[in-house]
């Protein structure tokens, strides 16, 4: 594959040898980032938002997730894992969450923390932020890295509405890094903090965080990648349970609907939206100010929220049901949030203003853009309008745009080619 130059990292690889050029990925990409050229899929890194749709739809294992190898744990003296809330929903009900958490130690971690530990604190922080920013409505959640990137590329005018504070796993990282380094007398470089995540977007966010001021995590492992190993250790964890504490009440973070309900209160109206197509629809309406009655909108690219992440094992609805069951049966467990509150007040969780990565403009100059638009319309009239993707572009419109931008030719249209051949054959016959 011809690598398109870009400053953007993505946690997705295309295995060219496996790619059949079927265009399934081209059709499911929410930002039209994929083209099939010379019978191979190519991803435009400027457009990709790491949603993982292409990876899920590919039948040929040609689109695969990038994930760090567990071997990198060896580079650190003290290794800490922070596990995403959706992890709890990936196991059958005979396996307790504490056993599933215990099994993670066997992968080589000295300590395991949970995203869910800070959920309650997050809710508090989000509410304070909403109240302190009355001039911006609605505030949009920023936890889902795919949503943040979607707004950067397609809805840049909404960037100021994003909740400009770190996500829970990064907040926890900030807090733990200082605390553990001091407690264990370590150098910062001796401490490795790693995330266990449900999707490619979170892997990307670890390697290229948006708006982060300081060094956060040292790597990310996907739930899908470690699952096999975890299963090996599970039996032992079930038979020899150690005293592993869990913070199950906060697992709500994995469920977009429940998270909105938690933020919602007397003076804050919250809305929950999940699934990337729904998110696009809602963002377009926010742009038009049709949803200003909401104070906060929870936006997640995957079905039901992070439980729908493409690198999870379990179906998002089953996983959601399991997590809800765990939450219901869990004992309340308080954590001391004073140190977090102190860091928050000191601005340690602030995020730098997020910058647009706009892909929408045809040209910087409006007159040239109009000229290009005219040409696009001319090509559009010639094209059959079937949106079959056989040319390798997602739609006839996208092909017309690709032609005008010099990235494709009208001869790429298979339908036109066939019509042309038929006409030639007919005229030869008539002669």
């Amino acid at each position, binding site marked *: 594959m011809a690598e398109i130059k870009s400053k953007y990292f993505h946690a997705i690889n295309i295995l060219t040898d496996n790619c059949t050029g079927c265009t399934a990925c081209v059709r499911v990409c929410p930002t039209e980032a994929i083209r099939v050229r010379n019978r191979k899929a190519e991803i435009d890194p400027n457009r990709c938002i790491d949603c993982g749709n292409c990876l899920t739809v590919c039948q040929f294992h040609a689109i695969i997730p990038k994930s760090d190898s567990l071997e990198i744990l060896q580079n650190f003296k003290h290794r800490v894992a922070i596990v995403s809330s959706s992890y709890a929903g990936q196991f059958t009900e005979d396996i307790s969450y504490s056993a599933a958490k215990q099994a993670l130690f066997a992968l080589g971690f000295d300590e395991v923390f949970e995203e869910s530990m800070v959920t309650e604190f997050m809710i508090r922080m989000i509410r304070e932020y909403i109240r302190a920013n009355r001039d911006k409505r609605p505030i949009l959640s920023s936890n889902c890295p795919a949503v943040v990137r979607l707004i950067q590329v397609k809805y840049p005018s909404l960037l100021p509405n994003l909740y400009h504070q770190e996500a829970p796993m990064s907040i926890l990282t900030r807090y733990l890094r200082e605390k553990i380094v001091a407690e264990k007398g370590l150098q910062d470089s001796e401490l490795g903090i790693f995330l266990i995540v449900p999707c490619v977007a979170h892997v990307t966010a670890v390697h290229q965080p948006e708006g982060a001021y300081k060094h956060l995590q040292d790597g990310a492992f996907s739930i899908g990648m470690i699952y096999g190993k975890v299963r090996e250790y599970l039996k032992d964890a079930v038979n020899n349970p150690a005293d592993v504490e869990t913070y199950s009440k906060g697992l709500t973070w994995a469920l977009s609907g429940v998270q909105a309900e938690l933020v919602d209160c007397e003076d804050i109206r919250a809305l929950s939206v999940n699934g990337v197509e729904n998110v696009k629809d809602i963002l377009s309406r926010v*742009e038009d100010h049709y949803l200003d009655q909401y104070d906060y909108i929870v936006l997640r690219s995957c079905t039901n929220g992070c439980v729908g992440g493409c690198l999870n094992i379990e179906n998002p609805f089953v996983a959601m049901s399991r997590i809800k069951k765990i939450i219901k049966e869990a004992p309340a467990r308080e954590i001391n949030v004073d140190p977090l509150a102190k860091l928050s007040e000191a601005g340690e969780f602030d995020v730098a203003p997020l910058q647009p990565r706009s892909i929408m*403009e*045809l040209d910087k100059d*409006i007159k040239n*853009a109009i000229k290009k*638009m005219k040409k696009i319309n001319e090509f559009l009239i010639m094209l059959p309008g079937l949106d079959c993707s056989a040319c390798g572009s997602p739609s006839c419109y996208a092909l017309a745009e690709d032609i005008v931008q010099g990235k494709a030719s009208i001869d790429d249209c298979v339908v036109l080619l066939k019509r042309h051949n038929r006409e030639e054959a007919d005229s030869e016959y008539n002669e």
Partner: protein
Amino acid sequence: MAEYWNIAPERKEFVESFFKDCPEPEVSLEFIITEKDFNTAGKGSAEIKNLLKRLGIDSEILRRVAVASYEAEINVAAHSVGGRMTSNVYDELIHIRFEDNGPGIADIAQAMTPGFSTADDLVREMGFGAGLGLSNIEKNSDMLHIVSERGKNTVLELMIFFG
């Protein structure tokens, strides 16, 4: 026949010469609006917004175009037997014309009043018909022109400048 004009004072001269010269648009888009079809009503204005995004139009202008064209499109679907929406893009502005096939507005001044609505139960059940459509269009456009005759049809056209 009744007629209604509202032009931003600083655009008056331009609008007059525009209607006199009738310049050719650079880009033109057309949509058919079907009576009471609220599933597709709104697609036209969404397409217009997408088109203007590609031209790099400022986001605040984009919002005004989106709101004005959406309200007008919904009006045609809710109150008429259907019609068409023609959007013409020029270097410095967009001109959108909504022409329906009847039945016309009885009293334009009354229809412009915020809160006044003749929407039937079906339309209200769909969540439309709050009576803010026309005043919203007026608020968001630089030029609004309505020509209507009860028993015939309505033509609504609006202009929004890019800068």
